[in-house]
């Protein structure tokens, strides 16, 4: 690849993961501003800080809570993701996360699981209501935005960085413009390099954020960690948000349906079956 001296890169840790920003023809200060934006928005959307907007919503006990425009948009998109995924992508997953012991950042370690408390997830529209500048959550419900927030943030950040930029927030990425050499942004997907233009990519996996026999991808039908015959799905789609939703949906529908689902919804994909799995 011809080396382009105008390619700027900036790497940092935020959102509990590694983040990378790239831009062609933009200043390093712009990338640093991008990092600040990620940290500010991440602080609003995390469930691990009691002062975040999301934690205030989760703790409101059914009362309306004022939310920022960004949180409002993300909650509205979460409702859309619930519909487009047939209910499989459901951010009302917090009670299950707590039941499996994911009560704090995994760098601090999981706490003992209380799987008996895990329940089938409620339909998101039945527990979450969003209006201009506010949101309300039914008592007993809780939201964890997880990868959806990262995919959406990658899209918004890429737009903020400029016409020729790429934002990668822990593997959820969004690329825009012709890339460093004019033929797209070269991005690795399961060992293959693909050239992204105005695309997003995401990977959903049960192989990371895993402890004991548990992991963080919840089957909404049971409220427990999913075991579908797929361990990991990587996807390229029109945006980082779409890629995240498609990857998680494909992971949850399992190998028999995931291929046709990806063929209908994704631009590129790779499915990793669970070891020992074979098609019926």
């Amino acid at each position: 690849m011809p080396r382009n001296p105008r390619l700027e890169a900036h790497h940092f840790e935020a959102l509990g993961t590694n983040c990378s920003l790239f831009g062609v023809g933009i200043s390093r200060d712009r990338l640093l501003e991008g990092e600040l934006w990620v940290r500010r928005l991440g602080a609003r959307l995390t469930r691990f800080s009691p002062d975040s907007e999301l934690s205030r919503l989760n703790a409101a006990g059914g009362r309306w809570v004022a939310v920022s425009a960004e949180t409002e948009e993300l909650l509205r998109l979460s409702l859309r993701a619930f519909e487009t995924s047939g209910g499989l992508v459901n951010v009302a997953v917090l009670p299950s996360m707590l039941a499996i012991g994911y009560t704090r950042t995994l760098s601090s370690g999981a706490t003992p699981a209380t799987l008996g408390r895990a329940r089938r997830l409620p339909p998101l529209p039945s527990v979450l209501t969003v209006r201009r500048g506010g949101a309300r959550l039914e008592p007993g419900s809780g939201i964890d935005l997880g990868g959806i927030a990262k995919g959406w943030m990658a899209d918004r950040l890429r737009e903020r960085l400029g016409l020729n930029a790429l934002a990668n927030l822990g593997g959820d990425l969004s690329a825009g413009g012709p890339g460093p050499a004019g033929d797209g942004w070269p991005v690795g997907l399961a060992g293959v390099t693909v050239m992204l233009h105005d695309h997003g990519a995401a990977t959903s996996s049960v192989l990371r954020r895993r402890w004991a026999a548990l992991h963080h991808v919840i089957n909404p039908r049971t409220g427990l960690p999913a075991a579908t015959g797929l361990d990991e799905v990587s996807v390229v789609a029109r945006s980082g948000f779409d890629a995240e939703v498609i990857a998680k949906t494909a992971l949850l529908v399992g190998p028999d349906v995931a291929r046709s689902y990806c063929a209908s919804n994704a631009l590129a994909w790779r499915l990793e079956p669970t070891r020992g799995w074979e098609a019926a």
Partner: protein
Amino acid sequence: MKAWVLKGGATLLTLATTAASALYVTSHLKNSSAPLQPTVLTSAQLNAVTLTPGVQQSDVTPVTSTYAS
């Protein structure tokens, strides 16, 4: 025409049709060129990266990757 002729003709026609059908289906157990045969997937097939025409593969070094975190 006598009734037994009609009955006999109908019986013969039925038997002949049954025999012909049996011969046909036993000699056409599988049509290898039949369309819309579902593919039997293997783990290796699922593991491969599938690209649509909207996304090109390249041999250049990626600047970053998608991964689980």
